[in-house]
């Protein structure tokens, strides 16, 4: 599958840059070594190549449809999901006592990346189930785990997340779904849910909906939201799925991309006969939901990255094969045309894709490694970084979600551009990848929400401790890079950019302290882009340090080309993208009010 994922790059990031193997020094992960990690990724690539990728175009062309009785999905999807489950991917990150592998989350991110790149629509079904299973594993009772979680890990039940309603998506405070207690921790659920991926299908024996609803008489707003397990079918005596639980399909939503993941509008309790089981305590539902939100958002960013990465691989191959035009200096019209990769502007578009997608992939894996470090701490292992790890993850999450969904989408746009008319036609996959990727800026909290979360919550929490932690780590990389003469200039420009980002942050927080909260947050999306660029530049500087050191050793021609490519892509990002931080910082410092003072009627 070298055509959609660069194994070389994945290995470089995981093992050379992030030293994931070091995690096996801790007791929780010591059943593993690099060999088992590579074997897991080998199996993922194999299944992705043989069972996921071949039907991606067909599924996009022939998406799930409702035939009046059931949702019909082309049969290749079930075969692919079965292979995923049978190989044990659903249980991979769970504890050994639960039949899992205790696989580090960073390696899990790597295998998920492979499936996203191959066919994000089909991968959606098991990955949604995995997210729901993680939530139940953390917050459900032992009984609930036995009844619902175990069948999910066996692949018999699939999972969904039901947050949005037709009138309330980003604003969960306005949801109206109601849960009336009927005893034994059970509630009657009534309401409509919207944009529910995997909401109805026949791929699994049952579907476990995790539903946010309000219990009457509870606190107003988000503090009155509780979380419920609502199965599509109630469970009979032996835990097998039995009669309907009054969850009705209202209709399917037809989408621009991600067309193979069925998306539904659902009605809960139209006949007043829909039963849900409370997860955890009443009114804490949103907190439980957000517990898994970090992982889900990092996952969305990773998905965006891999769609960009797959497009990059396709357009790169095309640019090497396609012959068109001649060198600017070649005046002979009878000479052989050159491969389009020989044209500087095509190389610009390929470099932009490489810089965005490989920088973002490193960030996705870096965040996963932070999650692993917190697992080590939770399991009683000692790590110097304890609290810092959690803070950094909180701060990086909105960036890891929003930056790739903007800039790796841009990469998909460039992949189409490299391929010209062919890229625009459905004969090649790059137009599909672009459509698929367009979703990622929207779901799991729009990028606008991410920007507010970053500036309004994460940057200011604990008096800016998270941002301090981030800058501390970036400075450590800068110091390391400065020890290498070839990287001194690069390191210095990141140092300057960090200073610019810090001064914009000070100007903004000063406005917040003066009570100008609307001005503080009005340009948050610019702030996210600015800090995102600093973070991706940091990811590239880390890669450059490793590439630089490996080049000094004994490397063959092929490896040398790979490492030179890393240094060149780093240079591209630092020369073409990082300078934007200066302008953004200055702009943010002016507390510009253009968007705030604009009036609706002036449009």
């Amino acid at each position: 599958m070298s055509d959609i994922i660069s194994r070389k790059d994945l290995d470089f990031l995981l093992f050379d840059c992030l030293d994931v193997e070091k995690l096996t020094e801790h007791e929780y992960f010591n059943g593993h070594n690099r060999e088992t990690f590579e074997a897991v990724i080998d199996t993922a690539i194999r299944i992705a190549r043989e069972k996921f990728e071949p039907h991606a175009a067909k599924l996009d062309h022939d998406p799930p449809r409702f035939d009046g009785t059931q949702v019909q999905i082309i049969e290749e999807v079930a075969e692919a999901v079965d292979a995923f489950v049978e190989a044990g991917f659903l249980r991979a990150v769970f504890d050994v006592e639960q039949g899992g592998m205790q696989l580090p989350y960073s390696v899990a991110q790597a295998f998920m990346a492979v499936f996203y790149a191959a066919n994000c629509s089909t991968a959606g079904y098991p990955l949604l189930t995995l997210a729901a299973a993680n939530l139940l594993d953390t917050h459900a009772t032992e009984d609930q785990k036995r009844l619902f979680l175990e069948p999910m890990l066996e692949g018999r039940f699939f999972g969904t997340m039901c947050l949005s309603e037709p009138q309330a998506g980003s604003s969960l405070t306005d949801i109206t779904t109601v849960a009336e207690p009927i005893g034994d921790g059970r509630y009657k659920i009534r309401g409509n849910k919207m944009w529910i991926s995997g909401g109805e299908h026949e791929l699994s024996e049952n579907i476990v909906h995790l539903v946010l609803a309000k219990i009457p008489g509870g606190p107003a707003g988000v503090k009155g939201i509780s979380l419920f397990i609502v199965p599509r079918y109630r469970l009979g005596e032996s835990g097998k799925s039995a009669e309907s639980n009054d969850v009705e399909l209202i209709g399917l939503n037809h989408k621009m991309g991600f067309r193979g993941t069925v998306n539904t509008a659902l009605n809960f309790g139209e006949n007043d006969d829909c039963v849900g089981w409370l997860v955890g305590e009443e009114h804490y539902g949103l907190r439980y939901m957000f517990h898994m939100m970090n992982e889900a958002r990092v996952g969305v960013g990773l998905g965006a990255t891999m769609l960009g990465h797959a497009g990059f691989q396709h357009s790169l191959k095309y640019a090497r094969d396609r012959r068109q035009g001649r060198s600017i200096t070649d005046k002979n019209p009878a000479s052989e045309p050159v491969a389009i990769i020989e044209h500087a502007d095509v190389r610009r578009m390929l470099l932009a894709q490489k810089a965005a997608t490989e920088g973002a992939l490193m960030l996705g894996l870096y965040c996963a490694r932070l999650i692993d470090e917190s697992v080590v701490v939770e399991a009683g292992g000692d790590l110097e970084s304890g609290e810092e790890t959690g803070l950094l993850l909180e701060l990086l999450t909105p960036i890891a979600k929003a930056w790739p969904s903007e800039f790796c989408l841009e990469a998909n746009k460039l992949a189409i551009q490299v391929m010209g008319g062919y890229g625009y036609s459905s004969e090649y996959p790059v137009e599909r990848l672009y459509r698929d990727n367009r979703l990622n800026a929207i779901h799991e909290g729009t990028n606008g929400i991410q920007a507010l979360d970053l500036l309004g919550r994460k940057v200011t929490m604990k008096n800016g401790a998270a941002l301090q932690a981030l800058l501390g780590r970036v400075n450590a990389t800068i110091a390391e890079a400065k020890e290498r003469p070839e990287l001194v200039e690069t390191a210095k420009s990141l140092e300057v950019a960090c200073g610019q980002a810090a001064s914009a942050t000070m100007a903004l927080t000063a406005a917040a302290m003066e009570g100008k909260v609307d001005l503080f947050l009005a340009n948050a999306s610019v702030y996210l882009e600015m800090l995102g660029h600093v973070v991706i530049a940091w990811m590239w500087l880390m890669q450059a340090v490793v590439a630089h050191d490996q080049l000094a050793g004994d490397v063959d021609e092929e490896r040398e080309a790979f490492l030179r490519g890393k240094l060149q892509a780093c240079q591209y990002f630092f020369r073409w993208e990082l300078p934007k931080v200066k302008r953004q910082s200055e702009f943010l410092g002016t507390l510009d009010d253009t968007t705030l003072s604009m009036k609706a009627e002036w449009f």
Partner: protein
Amino acid sequence: MKILTTVKRVTDPDMKVRIQPDQSGIVTEGVEYKMNSFDEYGVEEAITLKEAHGGEVVVVSIGPGAATKELRTAMAMGADRAILVETDADLDSDAVARVLAEVVGREEPDVIIMGKQAVDSDRSQTPQILGSYLNWPQATFAYKVEIEDGWAVVGREVDGGTATKRIKLPGIISADLRLNEPRYASLPGIMKAKRKPLETLTPDDLGVDIAPKVKVLNYEAPEERGAGEMVDDVDDLINRLKDEARVI
């Protein structure tokens, strides 16, 4: 029942193989390796037979130290233990068969199941030569295997169709690609494989002289295929197949 199966580490057939400029071999820089696909069918069949009849599956490879990866994969699929006969030399089929004959002498399996050929050299010789050294019966190109009462009934792919052959065990079966659908190495399987025994031997340990009997003169890439042409209609196609290609 003790089943011996073999795996070869080969260059990934999906990659484009390049010949060295002096034609002495292929370029190995940056090449990726995997288990020979016909051997996957052999390993799968060995595991299926063990599941049905009980016993043990021993997987053997001859090759560089890196071939432990392919052996671990076979054990992750379900083989019980592995033997690597380690050598960096490029063995001809006869040497491979003589090394295997020694391993068979030590292990005394009831049946040997191998891929019918390796996708790198495409020679399809080793199972047959091994049969000759061991003086065991062989059933090559199997698409179906049944074992009963010390005999193997093997459905074989032959020119123009299929044939069934019954051989007395111990014997050798070589696998064709319709035989089964090889399973994936599952994640729990990968964890188990880590703890399964892997013994490393050398040709010297087995007393085998691996000096080649076949001399390779040089390597050449096959002639590149020309571009296809669209024909106007069926008549045109038939005429050109007759007159230009002269195939009908």
